[in-house]
């Protein structure tokens, strides 16, 4: 059953139905429609007002959950102030998907694991006992192996949002709560999908206003030129004052069941000069943290060059 509430309150009330999910762009829900655990009930947000704007706030921006990814990628102010975010939005998926898919949907989408998406396979994430991807030696799995599920978190935007210390506004029946995006994703042990209790809806993402001294970049490593789920992707953010790095964010995708913020890499950058050797050392520390499976060990070698490329690009603006 799909309902079309016209107010946010009605939407949240409709989401109290067990198993009901919100539908915004609908791209991932429709792609998963044939799967055995596809949700039967959805709350379509088409007629709910107020979710699709990007608004400046005192401490940054508030990005509505139903803002389309293409809108985010093209936003003039964000392109100037947070290029890493705009690039991440502009590089993910394909132009047609970006024109429809939304910020909230990107954060809450399900993993792309070949087993999870297979109509005839039952995996751990679908209520099975074991992870068949792990048993089969999935090369595309996580190399920061955090939990029973091996699938990397799929959200590209989450990397960028984490780099700008994002908080998520969640509307419940009675109030709006604000949660750190990092907390929403958890530690990866409970699986790669952020889940909300019934009756709650992500309504917006708040990101911090960047300092005037910073640069940022998004780099996506894949075999093909376009339209491929990345082997590794990364958003980095660097602020430089008097030749020293004063702020660093390094958030990796494709490597873990959650967007992976590499604090060891960030620590290795702060206080240092933005030099290639410093970047290489920090990137190597990010990679050194990995605990891959035998089948995903190859990904570890891709981490450092991806981060180094991104840092070099961020440095150009900082």
């Amino acid at each position, binding site marked *: 059953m799909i309902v079309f509430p016209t107010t946010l309150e009605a939407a949240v009330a409709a989401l109290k139905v067990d198993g009901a999910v919100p539908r915004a762009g609908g791209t991932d829900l429709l792609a998963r429609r044939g799967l055995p655990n596809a949700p039967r009930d959805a709350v379509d947000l088409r007629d709910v007002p107020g979710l699709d704007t990007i608004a400046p706030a005192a401490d940054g921006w508030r990005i509505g959950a139903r803002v389309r990814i293409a809108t985010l990628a093209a936003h003039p102010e964000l392109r100037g102030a947070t290029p890493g975010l705009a690039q991440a939005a502009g590089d993910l998926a394909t132009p047609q998907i970006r*024109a429809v898919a939304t910020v909230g949907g990107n954060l809450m989408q399900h993993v792309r694991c070949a087993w999870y998406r297979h109509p005839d396979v039952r995996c751990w994430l679908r209520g099975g006992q074991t992870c068949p991807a792990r048993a089969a030696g999935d090369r595309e799995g996580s190399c920061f192996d955090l939990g029973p599920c091996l699938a990397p978190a799929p959200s590209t935007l989450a990397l960028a949002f984490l780099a700008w210390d994002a908080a998520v506004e969640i509307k419940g029946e009675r109030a709006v709560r604000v949660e750190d995006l990092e907390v929403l994703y958890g530690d990866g042990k409970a699986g790669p999908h952020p889940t909300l209790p019934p009756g709650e809806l992500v309504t917006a993402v708040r990101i911090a206003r960047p300092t005037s001294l910073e640069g940022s970049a998004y780099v996506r490593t894949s*075999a093909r030129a376009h339209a491929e789920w990345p082997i590794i992707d990364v958003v980095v953010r660097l602020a430089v004052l008097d030749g020293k790095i004063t702020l660093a964010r390094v958030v990796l995708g494709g490597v873990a069941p959650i967007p992976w913020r590499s604090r060891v890499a960030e620590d290795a950058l702060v206080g240092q000069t933005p030099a290639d050797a410093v970047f290489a050392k920090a990137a190597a520390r990010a990679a050194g943290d990995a605990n891959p499976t035998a089948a995903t060990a190859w990904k570890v070698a891709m981490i450092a060059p991806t981060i180094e490329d991104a840092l070099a690009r961020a440095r150009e603006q900082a």
Partner: protein
Amino acid sequence: MAVSRRGFLEGLGLLAGGLAATGPATAAPPAPTTVPPPPPGELPITVTVNGAPIALSVRPEASALSVIREQLGLRGAKFGCGHGACGACTVRVDDAPVCACVLPATSLHGRALGTVEGLGAPGAHHPVQRAFAALDALQCGYCTPGFVVEAAALYDQRKATGLGAPTREEAAAALAGHICRCGAYENILAAVISACRGDYDAAEPEPSRVEAWEKVTGRARYTADVALPGQLVGRFLRAPVAAGTLVWIDVGPALAVPGVRAAVGLAGGGAMIRYVGQPLACVAADDLAAARRGAAAIQWQIAPGVPVIGMEAGRDASRAPVYAEDDPARAKPPNASEGPVIGGAWNGNVRGPSKSHYFANPIAAVRMTDAAAERGERFQATFQVAAQSHTAMEPHGAVADVKDGKITLYVSTQSVDWLAHDLAERFEVDRADVHVIAEHVGGAFGAKAGLEIESVAAVLLSREAKRPVRITLDRAEELLVGGYRPGHALSVAGARSGSAFAAYTAEVYGDGGVAVGNNASLPARMMYPDAAKELLDWDVVTHVAPGRPFRGPGGPPAMFALEQTVDALARMGGDDPLDARRRWDANPARARLYDRLEAWAPWGGRLALPRTGRIRRGVGLAAGVWYYFLDVNTQVSLKATTDGAITVATATQDVGTGVRTVLARAVARVLGVPPATIGVRIGDSRDPSGPLAGGSRSTASIVPAAEHAAEQLRDALLEVAEEIGLVDPAIAEGGVRHAAGHTPWTELLARSAGVDVVGRRRRDKGGYFLPLRFGGLAIGRALTAGLVACEVEVDTRLGRIRVPRVWAGYAVGRIANPAGARSQVHGAVLQGISYALYEEKRLDPTTGQVLTHDLEHYRVALAGDAPETEVVFDEAGFDDVRGGSVGLAELATVPLAGAIGNAVFDATGWRPLELPIRPDRVVAGVAS
């Protein structure tokens, strides 16, 4: 035990299907099962469709694509993947291109929908449509409406913002959400750039091929678009496990499901299950949802076996046989090659060897030993190449309409003619009572060559339901059972002796699942005649859906191994790879191509490329060879009417190669008239026998037959000229010249009673290679020749390989249709790159489930991966071939993987032995 959405009884070791508990094998059919609730209520929406406001009622869970195609009847947008990866369904919503397959229909409410049908009309096509039509930016055409809609949006946007033409990179990025499996990107990019530059703003151009306007406007009708009155939708029930025995099956409960009109078993109790996806039964219903529910309601029980999955398991002699010794199926397994299956002994699941070099060659062994012992001039390696799925953009499908014992079948096929014959035989009806129609075919590549199960199922269901039935595969089914080029392991060795290529040996294992026919050692037989050879092929049979012939079966893996061996041997002796080939290669056509390659700038500049540091560049080349096949039974009819219309027809089909245009040009050439004046009808089994689109036989078969027909028409009209008293008439351009001037054919036709003639494919001078015929297939007395050079750029840290430029030269005689031939090369190059760098059919090693079940996981090259390609044709030779033209499609893709392998070695000093050359392999390989 394995997983199944149908649940299973673990204690008994039996898998069971259906919604209710199942009885023992001997039990009576179980009671009808509970039925899922009907779909919930519909929702009203209003939407502006191509400028006109329309009110609709839609199911809230429906995709926009199903509403656009089924409710609005606009069938230009195609179903390609169903998950937003291929872009075949692209439409515009408030100007932005979107994938209609993953767009909720309800989100169209209050929006402006633009489809390809709204873009332009005859005489007033959109500039993008004009550019696509003029520049041959299409092949099979199934993806074309999606590309055109996307490109039109780009055109409009760049025009509105004054940005003008995009760069190649910008155009490729804009098209990143579209897959053209034929690989027409080179011309697509050119068309998009040219249109945005304004080149097609003013006037309608001449189209590059006969059906170009139909394809760029979405009017071209594919099997998937056929909608007959009362038509039902079919769906298969497929085996959920790779191995076992079907204990019993009862389709009865499906009939109790509302909306289901027919259910037919395709396998009975006792049938062996040999692969996941093996069809067990089929159901026809009012809509797809009901058909799915019906298939799920079928009751069955399977005693599962232990599947043999992968080359290693297949070669393990201790594993149970896929075909038991006493199993009659063992005598005639499916064939993954395009030639006949040569006999071979079985050893467990390994069958062979078949020796494609018929003369057992002790010399090869002696020379190999000498080379190793005396000079160390020996190269030895085991190459391993992944299986490659065909996955044409139009999935397999058929629409059957059985009435009064007569069968009409619309089908996505490579062989309307043979299929009609096979259908008549299968259903024991007269050939005259079978009508097969394939107006447009959305790609095939070898996987749609015969009587496929969906044709059989559609006929069975239509006969049962007494209504037309369409059954088309979805993308997951296509990637599960739709065919693939087998994976191979090739253990090869090459030896040089002084400046000579002394010996080449190859032991090749091919894993085509339940299919046999591996012949990937064979192409080496036709190359480097001075090298002593021993070439052996084995089939490894596993519990996987059958591999099928794929564009040059055996050729790309064969050349990946052979041409890298030649490259290594050349370098061992300090030779330039091109010089060594010149010495070792006796083919005169390739000798000319070697000369022409030297003029290619990247070849001349290759020594200056960077070969140290992170980004390294190199150039590699590889030779290629393929057979010249033809169908000796080909006939082409020509009907000329008194109003001057001339129509050429034959029962062949166009899978994207431009066959209509080849026919029109062949007739036009004889008559000396513009090709656009010739009407063409193909894709209809009622026309005279035409060739199967496989084995690159079409051009060599239809050109001579069309010319023969045109000559007869010409002669008949010359007689008319005499009869009406023209003095000294003689054949001239476009008509006859006579004492009083020139009279065109049209005028003579007006004075005639009309002319009907049939042309035959007359024999080549000197006959054919063997007296053998397989069907009408003959092997011509000539070999085609190819030479490809690739420039690569290797990022040694991230393992990414780019192929910026390709030089592709071929000798296939006279080029019958230059634009179409260049397009064939573009596609072959692109598919070769895709095969070399990205494509890999992956299976779960335990269950045999296909993991590359969608177009996100099964990765093919996209616009951004397409190289700038220089196409060269050497038209000399082939003088004994009737018509002078032979086929190109297979040859053109054969050398690519070898050329890329050699280029990667040239750039990095690391020789790739495995396909695809994935980033992880590059990083590990270069590091070693």
